[in-house]
C-alpha cells in the first residue's frame, strides 16, 4: 500500500512539474516583446551559449564526419559504390546527426551551464531581489537566455553539419581515394534543398533549440535552492534534454521523411 502511495505521489509530482514547465514557457513567451527590445542582453547570452560552444561543435563535427567517411567507405566499397560516399555522409549529417548531436552537445555544454547559473541565482536570492525591485526575473533573466539559445542551436547545427561534411571529404577524398568530383556531384544529385536541408538542419534544430532551452531554463528556475538541489537540477536538465531530443527526433523523422503512415 505504501509503495502504491509513493507511486501515486511521484506521478503527481511529475504532472505538477510538467504543468510548471508549461506555465514557465508561457510566461517566457508572453514576455518576449520586452526581451526583444533589449537586444544587448540577448547578444551577451549568445556569447556564452553560442560562441563558447563553438570549439566543441567544430571538433566533434569534424570527427563525426571523419568517422562517417571512414565507416561509410568500408561498407560501400564492397558494393563498388564508394562514389556514393558523399551522399551517405551528407544525408546522415543533414537529416539526423547534425541537428541531434549538435543539440546533445549544446545540452551538455550550454544547457547545463544555464541551469546551474539560474539555479544559483535562485539559491542566492538574486531572483527574489529582482522581484523586490519590481524587475520580472522571467523577462530579465530567463527570456534573453531562452531567445539567445533558440537562435544559437540552429546556427550550431548548421556549422556542425558543414564541418562534418568537410571531415568526410577529408577522409574519403584525401585519405581513401574517392573521386573528388564524384563526392560532391553524387551529394548534390541526392540531397534536396527543401526536403533535406530545410526540414533537417533548419526545422529540426529550431525545434530542438526550443526544447533544449526550455528545459534548461525551467530546471534552473524550478531548482531546489540548495547546493544539492542545483546539482540535481543540472543533471536533470542534461538528462531530460537528451531524452526529449532523441524522442522528438524519431517523431520528427517519421513525420518529415515519411516511412510511417
Amino acid at each position, binding site marked *: 500500500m505504501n509503495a502504491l502511495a509513493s507511486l501515486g505521489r511521484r506521478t503527481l509530482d511529475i504532472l505538477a512539474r510538467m504543468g510548471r514547465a508549461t506555465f514557465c514557457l508561457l510566461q517566457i513567451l508572453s514576455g518576449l516583446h520586452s526581451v526583444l527590445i533589449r537586444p544587448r542582453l540577448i*547578444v551577451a547570452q*549568445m556569447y556564452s551559449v*553560442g560562441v563558447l560552444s563553438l570549439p566543441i561543435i567544430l571538433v566533434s563535427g569534424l570527427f563525426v564526419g571523419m568517422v562517417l567517411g571512414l565507416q561509410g567507405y568500408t561498407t560501400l566499397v564492397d558494393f563498388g559504390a564508394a562514389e556514393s560516399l558523399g551522399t551517405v555522409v551528407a544525408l546522415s549529417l*543533414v537529416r539526423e546527426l547534425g541537428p541531434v548531436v549538435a543539440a546533445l552537445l549544446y545540452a551538455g555544454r550550454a544547457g547545463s551551464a544555464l541551469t546551474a547559473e539560474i539555479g544559483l541565482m535562485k539559491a542566492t536570492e538574486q531572483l527574489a531581489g529582482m522581484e523586490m525591485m519590481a524587475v520580472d526575473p522571467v523577462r530579465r533573466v530567463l527570456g534573453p537566455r531562452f531567445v539567445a539559445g533558440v537562435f544559437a542551436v540552429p546556427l550550431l547545427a*548548421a556549422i556542425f553539419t558543414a*564541418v562534418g561534411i568537410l571531415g568526410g571529404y577529408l577522409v574519403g577524398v584525401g585519405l581513401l581515394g574517392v573521386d573528388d568530383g564524384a563526392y560532391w556531384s553524387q551529394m548534390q544529385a541526392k*540531397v534536396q534543398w527543401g526536403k533535406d*536541408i530545410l526540414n533537417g538542419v533548419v526545422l529540426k534544430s529550431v525545434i530542438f533549440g526550443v526544447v533544449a532551452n526550455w528545459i534548461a531554463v525551467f530546471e534552473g528556475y524550478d531548482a531546489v535552492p540548495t547546493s544539492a538541489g542545483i546539482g540535481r537540477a543540472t543533471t536533470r536538465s542534461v538528462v531530460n534534454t537528451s531524452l526529449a531530443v532523441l524522442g522528438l527526433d524519431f517523431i520528427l523523422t517519421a513525420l518529415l521523411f515519411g516511412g510511417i503512415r
Partner: protein
Amino acid sequence: MSTSRIVETLVGLFVALGIVALFFLSLQVSGISQLGGERSYRIYARFENVGGLKVRSPVSMAGVRIGRVGAISIDPQTFQALVELRIDSQFADLPVDTSAKILTSGLLGEQYVGLEAGGADAVLKDGSTLKLTQSALVLENIIGQFLFSKAAEGSGSNAAPAAKP
C-alpha cells in the same frame, strides 16, 4: 566598453559563421544551383515505359551530361510516357534525328536518358519531339521473355526457334 565590443564582435562572427554554413549546405551540398540559373530549352520524347526514370535524372550524350529530365507525364491519347528533357542552351544544335534511350548507369545504378545524335542537317528547336526512342529495359519483362522462350524450346520437340511473344 571594450570587452562588450569584443563580445559583440565574437557573437557577430558566430552568427556569420552559422549563415555561411547554411549557405554552404544550400549551395554546395544540395546542388540547388544546378536547377535554376542555367538557360535551357525543352524537347520532348515519348517512351513506352520509362522504368525508374525520375525528374532531375541526367540527360547525357556520349557520356557527358547535357541536361536534366524536367517533367514526366502521360500522354492522354497514346498512353505513352511523355518525358520533357531540359537541354542546356550551350548544346543547341542537336540534329532532328537524334534518338533517345533510357539507360542504366552500372548494373543497379540510377536510370538516365542517353541521346545519340543523328546525321540530319536540321536542328531540334525548343518544344520539338524526338521521333526515335527506346524504352527502359524492365528486368522482369526480359526474364519473362527468356523463361517463355525456354519453355517453348523445351515443349516443342522439332526445336523450332521460339517465336517472340
